[in-house]
């Protein structure tokens, strides 16, 4: 049977505020346990939460960036459950009316433009941490420690519609989301420190079936690679289970990267009754149009806006712009390159950026921020293509040398050292052409007999004679002139 995969993702994005969402404690990572927990974070008697407006501002930014609705009045609710690192034994979260509703993200999957709709994004507080390993109790016995430094850290939980149909799509969505929140400056994006965490809701159904299959929720996925592995494992597990006559159970599963598998954490039967109700300590969150306008005015140019501008200014395709506007560094790199080039050479810059540069980055597993070829250097290289010094082919050779830092990564120096300058001199090209025509009368004969392929063969011979440096256009023209005269 053919199976269709259905995936929805929930991202927990730690917002980049200095203090916590309901208290004045700092949110820094890595401090000594319980040094960043005050009376509110410890849920001491008489303590009360007060909303950090910086967290709200970041949520508004996100909502605007994905074209969502910003709720003029959203509600904080209490999600009640007992857990030792949840000091109040309820989590303050948004339930019925979240701050952000709807919106969408567009990105490329295998060069295919894809749009995924978002359900909602809501503000909530993080819990603390339980330390199970090597934590001796007062009498040396094995114990669990509680660190409340993280308790109350602001999170934006971003929920997608179940619209993704492959692990590749899910990873592309997650990467795009990650890039966006970093682009917006609302999250540091550090996945090792847990600033960006993904839960994957996965189900399968026979192709053509309308109803969703039973889904599982896989937690603890802290890298894009693991996300892909976890989804692939889970899809395979579900398909095998069903094909063996079993049934998928609705449950929460945990991804174990060491064993590359997902494991059951708790089933639906163990699911808590969270007894949500509006938090009486916090009045409704009112966001008036003025506040939204103020946030809007302070926003960086968004990927969508930038894409449109690039498309209009440089005649780029959607594939081009989605790739370039995938993250802020790439877009900035593109703009820096274009700024160095005379005339409107956006298309050339885009082709190189999305071609050579991204391929090299991917091959070496690098980020744009650590790209060894600087924008100004790439611009210098492209200038040599534009002025005819280099053919595209030779330029790629120069680029490879720049990438590994030859001659300080300066293209002119590399061209000089390697003698890669294109031959543009018509006299020299004519001489090459004449030599080839004289040496291959048989091919000339074939051409004259009407074989178009023979022409290409002659071009090849001339290029070979010129060690690839002859200007291909000029070679073409000169050959045609000679043969057709």
């Amino acid at each position, binding site marked *: 049977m053919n199976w269709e995969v259905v995936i929805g993702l929930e991202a927990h994005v730690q917002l980049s505020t200095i203090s916590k969402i309901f208290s004045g404690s700092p949110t820094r990572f890595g401090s000594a346990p319980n040094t960043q927990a005050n009376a509110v974070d410890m849920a001491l008697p*008489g303590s009360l939460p*007060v909303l950090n407006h910086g967290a709200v501002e970041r949520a508004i930014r996100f909502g605007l960036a994905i074209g969502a609705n910003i709720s003029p009045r959203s509600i904080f609710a209490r999600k009640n459950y007992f857990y*030792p690192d949840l000091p109040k034994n309820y989590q303050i979260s948004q339930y019925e009316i979240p701050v952000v509703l709807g919106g969408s993200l567009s990105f490329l999957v295998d060069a295919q433009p894809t749009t995924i709709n978002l359900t909602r994004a809501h503000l909530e507080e993080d819990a603390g941490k339980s330390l199970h390993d090597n934590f001796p109790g007062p009498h040396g016995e094995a114990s669990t420690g509680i660190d409340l430094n993280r308790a109350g850290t602001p999170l934006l939980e971003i929920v997608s519609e179940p619209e993704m149909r492959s692990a590749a799509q899910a990873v592309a969505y997650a990467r795009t989301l990650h890039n966006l929140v970093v682009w917006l400056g609302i999250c540091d994006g550090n996945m090792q420190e847990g600033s960006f965490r993904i839960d994957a809701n996965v189900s399968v159904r026979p192709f053509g079936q309308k109803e969703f299959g039973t889904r599982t929720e896989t937690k603890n996925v802290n890298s894009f690679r693991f996300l892909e592995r976890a989804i692939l494992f889970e899809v395979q597990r579900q398909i095998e289970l069903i094909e063996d006559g079993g049934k998928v159970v609705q449950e929460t599963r945990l991804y174990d990267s060491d064993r590359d598998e997902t494991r059951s954490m708790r089933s639906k039967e163990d699911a808590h009754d969270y007894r949500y109700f509006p938090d009486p300590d916090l009045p409704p969150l009112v966001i008036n149009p003025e506040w939204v306008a103020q946030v809007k005015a302070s926003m960086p140019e968004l990927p969508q806006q930038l894409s449109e501008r690039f498309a209009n200014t440089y005649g780029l395709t959607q594939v081009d712009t989605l790739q370039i506007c995938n993250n802020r560094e790439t877009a900035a790199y593109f703009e820096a390159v274009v700024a160095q080039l005379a005339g409107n050479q956006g298309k050339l810059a885009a082709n190189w950026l999305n071609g050579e540069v991204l391929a090299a980055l991917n091959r070496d597993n690098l980020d744009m921020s650590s790209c060894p070829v600087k924008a100004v250097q790439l611009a210098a290289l492209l200038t040599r293509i534009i002025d005819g010094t280099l053919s595209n082919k030779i330029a790629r050779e120069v680029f490879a040398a720049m990438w590994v830092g030859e001659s300080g990564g300066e293209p002119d120096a590399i061209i000089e050292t390697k003698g890669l300058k294109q031959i543009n001199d018509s006299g020299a090209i004519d001489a090459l052409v004449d030599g080839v025509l004289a040496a291959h009368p048989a091919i000339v004969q074939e051409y004259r007999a009407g074989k178009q392929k023979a022409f290409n063969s002659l071009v090849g011979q001339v290029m070979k004679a010129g060690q690839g440096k002859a200007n291909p256009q000029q070679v073409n023209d000169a050959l045609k002139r000679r043969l057709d005269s």
Partner: protein
Amino acid sequence: MTQILKDFPSIASLRSALDERKISSVELTQTLLKEVAAQNELNAFVDLNPELSLAQAKAADQTIAAGQAQILTGIPIAHKDIFVTKGWHTTAASKILKGYKSPFDAHVVEQLIQAGTVSLGKLNCDEFAMGSGNEHSAFGPAHNPWHPKVVPGGSSGGSAAAVAAGLVMAATGTDTGGSVRQPAALCGVSGIKPTYGTVSRYGMIAYASSLDQAGPIARSAHDLMLMLDAMSSFDPRDATSIQNCRGVANQNGRIKQDFTQHSQRIEKQGAKPFSGLRIGVPEEYFGLGLDDGVAKAVTAAIAQFEALGAQKVSISLPHTRLSIPAYYVIAPAEASSNLARYDAIRYGHRTEQYTDLADMTARSRSEGFGAEVQRRIMLGTYVLSHGYYDAYYLQAQRIRRLIAEDYQAVLGLKCDVILGPVNPTVAPPMGEKNQSPTAEWLADIYTLSLNLAGLPGMSIPCGFAPGFDGQALPVGLQLVGNYFEEGQLLALAHHFQHATDWHSRRPESATGALV
């Protein structure tokens, strides 16, 4: 033993004595601490720290000597054990918080320290403010100074008893469903619950957050005004704290100014000071199992208002009866969540033996919480549960809106204030309500609706009615105003007290009948 505060009928009179050096704050504090010890059987106090009280008194004397005394400098008060304090233990009268000391003071406590008051300690109450008789306390019941075998009311029973017994000039209380007004009524003293949001809840141990509001208990409306004025101010640490009361900044001085304006207007009217005042009397209030003696005293008080020039208007508050089911859904729902933090992990009582974490928390809570608290936690958990939320919690919220609308349909339109009883009976004997918990709940009929609506209300003594053992026990009159009209209520009560002397009646011997 003599009672030193009997010599001072009001805060103002004690103020003069302190300013004229007839007595020092330290002397007064020392004497009162002795009286507290002598009246130990009253069980009004649950924690003392004489050293700290005397340090505060000494500071007050220095302020007075420097000629910088404010109205409350050196005035002896005490705090309900619901307010967290750095200097005294804070337990909410619960075993689960036995020995707990807060690293910070409640906003109310801070404000009263700034105002120069001297705190004698912490006062008994019902556990987590859940109860109407101060019988649900881990410290045992507080007693009513009018008769040792009747309850002082609750949950601020210790506060009302201490004021009535003359151990403090005033005390703080909290009122979630009548917990300031009702004990004030049953102990023959005055108490006010201000508009929700005017006094910060920061540092007030939460019972039902959307209903909890702090308020003072004192001997007279004027003393209440001085206390409330010092307590009421905007606090950014409480997100429900109100910054602006109908165009007036919520800060110290607001209540006093409003009170003074109303007082001056009333005084100008001479022999009929209440001329032009429309007093609404709800029809529903006199058919709800109201005790005859209480009805008689309340009716007489209303007649007294008329004699002073007010015009009586019959009004209807049709949803009054629904306030009991609405309250006993909303308050336990919030409480079940508010009290979840007492899990024996970070602080508080921890059981001796347990098998695992869940067992530790469950056993500690079972041992640490009293029966009434457990009852309300279970009830609240139930009404918030999946499948019951709409039928109970949402329905109760709808009733809550209807009740608030009832008041808005009459206040300012048909009447200026509403008068009525505080409690259907005088103080009942101890142990009476233990048989049926819901019987205790039904007696809250006159007080709950104000908390549901968030309106201000107060209780002042208006007479006596025969109670347990044939003893004449105090009756309270409730005054209700619209939002932020505490100043007007206090001014009316003050002038009523000017014309009557119910508020200056004191129990003969607070502990005389105790054996």
